[in-house]
């Protein structure tokens, strides 16, 4: 992974830039001490690190606007940062960039149950949005795995998903409006508590633009009444193909569970060793969750059982208590932690058409053997969003590079079968150079033209998303 050479002029002007930022921001909102800046040198893609020129932590939209005006005038690159949990390097700085962290903007601005909306400052964490309303029986649906830590700003930037998006959609389907500060320091209100846009759907293109079009400081989110109850069921199979066929049959039958999660044998074994959830030792298992009143849950589980039995499952485990439900989810929720215990790993998140599942799993198995690197699969089966985890040893020279090469082959495979490079994590720096696998030069050009409109100088998070060669003429170096 390459980053452009830092701009020498910007590096040389650090004292001036910091002084100008201090003129418009409170003293404690500007960080330039090299030791303190280490806290911002990477996000959750920790294999790549680079301390920024400075970091700023504004407390209001007005402060964000003032700081961006300074950065534009100085020609300094700006990397917006929510909570720094990006798995794609979306918040990774460059040496010549200012990190704009939104973490101090966490207030709830408005809750309206009659209109079913909440307006929050965008630095608020995902889970604490639900935290502010759950005592009244409401919740915010998108639930990325990092929801305890990740910020709404980052969720919007990456259009984050989660385990329950099969029923509730991803961030873009639950976002009604934003306050956006452009690189020029202009404050725009896009959308609001009403449902649709009067003209072009700017909100739709802002969501998922990876911090490249503007800085979101406030967001209006759709909230929902909590279902009366939810219950998971665990189904084990002696082949991944059969598990995949069972998923297809459930969807085909018109049952729409809130989540269908899939784990393969390497993943089951690793999580069992780590979390002791009592999973069966089988080739593949599904965790399916349904919602509603007890009677509604019974009705749905009855249908799922009938379908599953046609595929001769080795196990069909229903939960009858909160405790049993937790145990069913325990292994799935600890999967990433378990992998981290036994190895370093790289987590991919390509999406495939669900019909291609057997073919893709088989090919991943072959590639894994070819490269000599183990791959464990855990993913959202209902929507085809894979999460192959490639295990490697970071301290063994050459293994990171080998792992990246295997990752690129797997993602290319995802595109070949009709899927995409990333289903919910974003492109960032991680998949930037693979974009040409999925897109023609004209496709990429059309996207970059959108950035030209919002950020003509290409100062916002510029070396991300697009292959460096494709964006070189626009970035100016």
């Amino acid at each position, binding site marked *: 992974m390459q980053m452009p050479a830092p701009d020498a002029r910007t590096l040389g002007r650090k004292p001036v830039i910091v002084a100008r930022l201090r003129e418009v921001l409170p003293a404690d909102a500007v960080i330039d001490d090299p030791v303190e800046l280490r806290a911002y040198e990477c996000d959750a893609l920790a294999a790549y690190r680079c301390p920024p020129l400075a970091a700023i932590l504004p407390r209001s939209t007005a402060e964000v606007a003032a700081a961006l005006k300074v950065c534009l005038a100085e020609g300094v690159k700006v990397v917006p940062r929510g909570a720094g949990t990006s798995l794609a390097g979306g918040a990774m700085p460059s040496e010549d960039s200012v990190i704009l962290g939104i973490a101090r903007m966490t207030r709830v601005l408005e809750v*309206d149950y*009659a*209109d079913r*909306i909440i307006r929050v400052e965008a630095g608020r964490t995902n889970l604490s949005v639900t935290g502010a309303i759950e005592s009244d*029986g*409401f919740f915010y649906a998108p639930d990325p795995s990092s929801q305890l830590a990740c910020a709404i700003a980052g969720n919007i930037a*990456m*259009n984050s998903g989660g385990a329950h*998006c099969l029923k509730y959609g991803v961030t*873009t389907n639950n976002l009604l409006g934003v306050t956006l500060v452009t690189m020029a320091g202009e404050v725009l*209100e896009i959308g*609001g*508590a*009403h*449902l*649709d846009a*009067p*003209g*072009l*759907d*700017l909100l*739709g*293109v802002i*969501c*998922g*633009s990876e911090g490249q079009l503007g800085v979101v400081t406030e967001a209006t989110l759709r909230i929902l*009444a909590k*279902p009366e109850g939810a219950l998971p069921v665990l189904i084990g199979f002696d082949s991944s193909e059969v598990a995949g066929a069972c998923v297809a049959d459930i*969807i*085909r*039958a*018109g049952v729409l569970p809130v989540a269908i999660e899939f784990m393969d044998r390497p993943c089951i074994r690793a999580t069992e060793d780590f979390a002791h959830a009592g999973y069966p030792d089988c080739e593949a298992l599904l965790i399916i969750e349904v919602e509603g*009143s007890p*009677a*509604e849950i019974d009705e*749905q589980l009855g249908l799922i059982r009938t379908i599953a039995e046609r595929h001769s499952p080795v196990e069909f485990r229903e939960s009858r208590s909160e405790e049993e439900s937790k145990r069913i989810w325990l292994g799935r929720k600890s999967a990433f932690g378990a992998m981290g215990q036994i190895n370093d790993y790289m987590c991919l998140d390509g*999406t495939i*058409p669900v*019909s291609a599942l057997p073919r893709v799993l088989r090919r991943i198995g072959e590639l894994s053997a070819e490269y000599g690197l183990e791959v464990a699969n855990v993913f959202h089966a209902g*929507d*085809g969003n894979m999460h192959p985890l490639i295990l490697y040893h970071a301290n063994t020279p050459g293994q990171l590079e080998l792992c990246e090469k295997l990752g690129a082959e797997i993602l290319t495979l995802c595109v070949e079968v009709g*899927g*995409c*490079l*990333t*289903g*919910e994590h*974003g492109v960032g720096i991680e998949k930037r150079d693979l*974009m040409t696998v*999925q*897109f023609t030069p*004209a496709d*990429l*050009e*059309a*996207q970059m033209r*959108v*950035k030209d*409109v*919002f950020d003509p100088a290409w100062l916002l998070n510029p070396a991300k998303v697009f292959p460096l060669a494709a964006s070189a003429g626009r970035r100016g170096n």
Partner: protein
Amino acid sequence: MRPTTEDDLAALVRGATGPLRVQGGGTRGPLAEGDVLETAGLSGIVLYEPAALTLVVRAGTPLAEVQAALAAEDQRLPFEPGEMGGLLGRPGDSTIGGVVATNASGPRRVQAGACRDSLIGVRFVDGRGTVIKNGGRVMKNVTGYDLVKLLAGSHGTLGVLTEVAFKLQPIPPATATLILPGLTPARAVAAMSAALGSPFDVTGAAHLPGTGTLIRLEGLAASIAYRVDRLLVALAPFGQAVVERDPAAAAALWQQVRDAAPFHGREGDVWRISVRPSDGPEVAARLGGEVVMDWGGGLIWALYPAGMDARAQLAGIAGHATRVRGASANVPAAAPEPAPVAALTAALRAQFDPRGILNGEASQ
């Protein structure tokens, strides 16, 4: 002009020397001045995988053909697109591309999202005559910018859609609609908010003059029976609801809401107003005439005297009002956007269509 391939369409756009009216079935939205570029020649289902809830279809395919193909597999477009031909007095077959270009979304929008939320991929020819694809055929995709949403509702001003992809929904086996008669708009919105804020997964909440306030449930049979009972209790303060369980009769009611049927063939302009639901009663009160409310009060169809400015009555209410039927030299059909947003919109159009030839000046 009626090209039959994407390449031919691209060549026509590249070779165009003046403004083009991009037209599917010509049943929706304002019709632009210019040579007519029809998409009906680009027709047919490209890929339909019922087990993956995925459909890819050429933009000129008639909506009715798409719906019939899905219904044969007990599936549907989640967002319940309406037909505008009856309201606008335009015969013709609505196309799926026209649905996308206008982001046409019916009553289920409150639960299943708009057209743009079910749309997972597009192919289009921009104003330069370049073929561009975005999104794809998978449900979860954050690879690059989401131009899919930008194209949905862009009224053909950024490009000519050639192919669109959707995620689908199974048609639930049972449905029921609760009908509360005789509520004022304010009480109707209160009842709809109570229903939409319940855990019972309401898939439609509308107020149809002469019929009542409608609350729709869809799902498995036992679940519907249970939820109807619970909602009857929750909505008791609003009166005794009648329950319509016959799917065909219920569908006819929702079709009236979806297509603003009470205003078909009537004198006067029709306005479509999008606000936060709790502002719905205030909009109805200020306009004074007949309204159909959908989306729990967030979408208002209003019949208003011809040539008069309904928008001027709504000052201070957040949202927007569009005149969908009628004409006026002095009152623009679409709501003017705030200057900085209008500047972004204009700049985006200039990027995708630098010659400004696609669906430019609209006439009614």
